[in-house]
């Protein structure tokens, strides 16, 4: 029996994308497979690791726990949409500069989470950084340079605003 598909419209990184998906297609799979945006990574597919974090109307969500159809009509920002044209965002530059990544598989999720965190709280304390990104796992770095990167991103954002 052919599976029923739904026509949905997503604004992904500022571009309107129309896509037909089955009701149970995950947003992560929709982004990666249907729209070819593989910068969003899938590490556990059960909402723990945070690798798949994207911004849904600016708020971080686990795209592996979100059905694509529920994002119909909404704005989605993925890692590919964080840069302003060729210029990487302060968060992206800070993670590269502070060695806040090694294998880099978790990085897109961290970047999205931190982008939202700094928008809410442009100068977080150490404790606020820890709380803000405690839902993202990293297996390589022991997090030390990720904390530095978040503070550096806050600095860069302040300098450039």
């Amino acid at each position, binding site marked *: 029996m052919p599976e029923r598909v739904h026509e949905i419209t997503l604004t992904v990184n500022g571009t309107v994308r129309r896509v037909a998906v089955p009701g149970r297609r995950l947003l992560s799979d929709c982004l990666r497979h249907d729209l070819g945006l593989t*910068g969003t990574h899938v*590490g*556990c597919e*059960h909402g723990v690791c945070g690798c798949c974090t994207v911004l849904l109307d600016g708020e971080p969500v686990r795209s592996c726990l979100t059905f694509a159809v529920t994002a119909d009509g909404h704005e989605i920002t993925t890692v590919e949409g964080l840069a302003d044209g060729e210029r990487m965002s302060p968060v992206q530059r800070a993670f590269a500069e502070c*060695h806040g*990544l090694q*294998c880099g598989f978790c990085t897109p999720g961290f970047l999205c989470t931190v982008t939202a965190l700094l928008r809410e709280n442009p100068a977080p304390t150490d404790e606020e950084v820890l709380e803000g990104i405690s839902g993202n796992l990293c297996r390589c770095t022991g997090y030390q340079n990720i904390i530095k990167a978040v503070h550096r991103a806050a600095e860069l954002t302040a300098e450039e605003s």
Partner: protein
Amino acid sequence: MTRTGSGSATPVRAPRDIAAPGTGGVGDSPLRPDGTLKVKGEFAYSSDLWIDGMLWGATLRSPHPRAKIVSIDVSAALAHPGVSAVLTHEDVPGRKHFGLDHTWDQPVLAAGEVRHQGEPIALVAADHPETARRAMEKIRIEYEVLEPLTDARRAAFDPAYPQVQPRGNLARHQPVRVGDVEAAKARAEVVVSGEYRVGIQDQAFLGPESGLAVPAEDGGVDLYVATQWMHNDLKQIAPCLGLPEEKIRMTLSGVGGAFGGREDLSMQIHAAMLALHTGRPVKIVYNRYESFFGHVHRHPAEMRYEYGATKDGRILYADVEILLDGGAYTSATMNVVGNAASLGVGPYVIPNIKIDAYGVYTNNPPCGAMRGFGAVQACFAYESMMDKLAEACGLDPVTVRQVNAASQGSELATGQVIWAPLPMAEMLRQARELPMPPPLDASDIRNLPGGASQTTHGEGVRRGVGYGVGLKNICFSEGYDDYSTARVRLEVIGGEAVALVHTAAAEVGQGLVTLEAQIARTELGVERVVIHPADNQVGDAGSSSASRQSYMTGGAVMTACQAVREGVFALAAARLDRPLDTLGDLSLVGGKVVSESAGVLAAIEDVLGDAVIEETREYHHEPTTGMDPVTGRGDSHTQLALCVHRAVVDVDVELGLVKVVELAAVQDVGKILNRLSLEGQIHGGTAQGLGLAVMEEIVVSDGKVRNPSFTDYLIPTILDMPPMRLEILENADPRAPYGLRGAGEPPTLSSTPAIVAAIRDATGLALTRVPVRPEHITGSS
């Protein structure tokens, strides 16, 4: 990237050349050349590969740890719409078994019997991953379920215990014998003993196993995979596919972490079989659940230790038994046993030693390589023993370690003389003298063990401090010649000299590509370096494991660059029309050919002109020997590296909750090649040791994994990992390139016992197994 010979299509988002622009030679901290791609979401991980028309593979695995396969019926699966192939062991084109280290005991697909839960039995290729999984559920297998053989002790010592596989149940017994332990027992004034256990730890790399196989016109296959060691993959893949190695072209794709878990094959042969069978590209991506069954784990260990000493704490003898459960197949068990035996008492000078290390087969989950590799398990036991000895002798933990510390010139348990500096006593002193973190501020509940979940006001919280020392062998041991190969090409592109570095070495996140570029800049005096994607079109680089790539591939890049440099010098002499030996001592600095006596002779670009200089070099470390099968004697290790940890913890003794407050590390790395990368390795290695100390364990009962998810297998979050202090020493190893020592593994050894020692200090409990769980602290288990 360019590809020749295969005639097959190249996937979109395939690995590509990475330019490493800018400056930064050996000793600097240039940024990772792949960092920009990674923060932009453009780095092609093996799970991101894509080629039009590709099929998706899925793997049917055994739900039983031990069973006979009575029958397999694939007809319903094959008839499922969208399915292109369903394959079983009958369809394996060549050899039916593979394995690391010449022990080819692992079936490509199970035939007649399964020996562990999750063993692959059948493969499906379909037009969509969900279709493949649904079809897989239609494969009907009739099992005769058998009682799993899960008792490692009986497997080792009970001849009546049934055999797990035809090799017998004992994979390796490695004794170590020094002096006369029985005689020393009569002289001991203090005797301490303990039984220790280490649970199964998972590498838990965040990017699950995945890859793409593309059939080629020449009947071969192009494989894009995330692995630690392409050439060893190839040695196993080719015979199983019945193809010559040259018909299999392998390209390293982006690797989402490894930590030992990608040293064994996972989906490589399976995807290639499906691609060759269907004539279409096939991609396989495991999910997290499957990943827990898709790779080997850290061996669980049972260890019995007895030390005798003088009353002032000088160890007279060590009587040790280490039992490692390798699960159903050999994988790396032989070498894990070798490490556990040779490093069984760690960096301590003990005149009389009896160690027996065993690796056995059971129907428990298969175990193999994980960061620390046999040395981790022993380290937890011998460091626990040092604390026990300190207590028995009324010494503090640092002093008892200093009293017995090895140093340059002393012998390991194997009799191998420690040839390079090993300033362990000094490192312990430094660790002790580092400033302490401030006392607990219980007014903020987030500071308490358990954090926001705390239900008390911290009345039961006690602070503890503990130390751990770990000694790790770097590079492969026991006579293995794990060489590496590098091809370096220097030419003028766009008016500028550019070095292209090509190796088969796997960048798994550790930063090898950064280091390759730094070495090329230092040796060739150029700024622009390009790192070619790692593939098998260049010679073997060995594995990205055993903390060996800086040493081995670093050494290969260094020597290939030096050969290129000689070519530049010869060319310079020709261009200047002067004999080379009249030019004095030459070097390449700042883009110039420089003579020590005459100064700048020419720009590299002017010397090169249209010439291209390319050199390929193999780099071999000093030969090692095997371990004597009876005494364990032998110069078995290539290099040794030491890390000391001091852990500070707060423990809620009533709730059993632990908060690691601070971890300080003192590590000797020989030479800092890139401080930023190096510190990242020490941080990450320490975090994995923390995981083993208090969080991480694959829980197994009756041979079955009970927690194959990140909901139930917990790895440290940013709230679990405390701030770190690092002291990094540079006592060069004269044998190694630039004097460096491998750095990734030692901190994984020492952080675990340091944390457990700190919990013991806070609680007064014995705590003989890791991970330490709340019920071990509250006594409620």
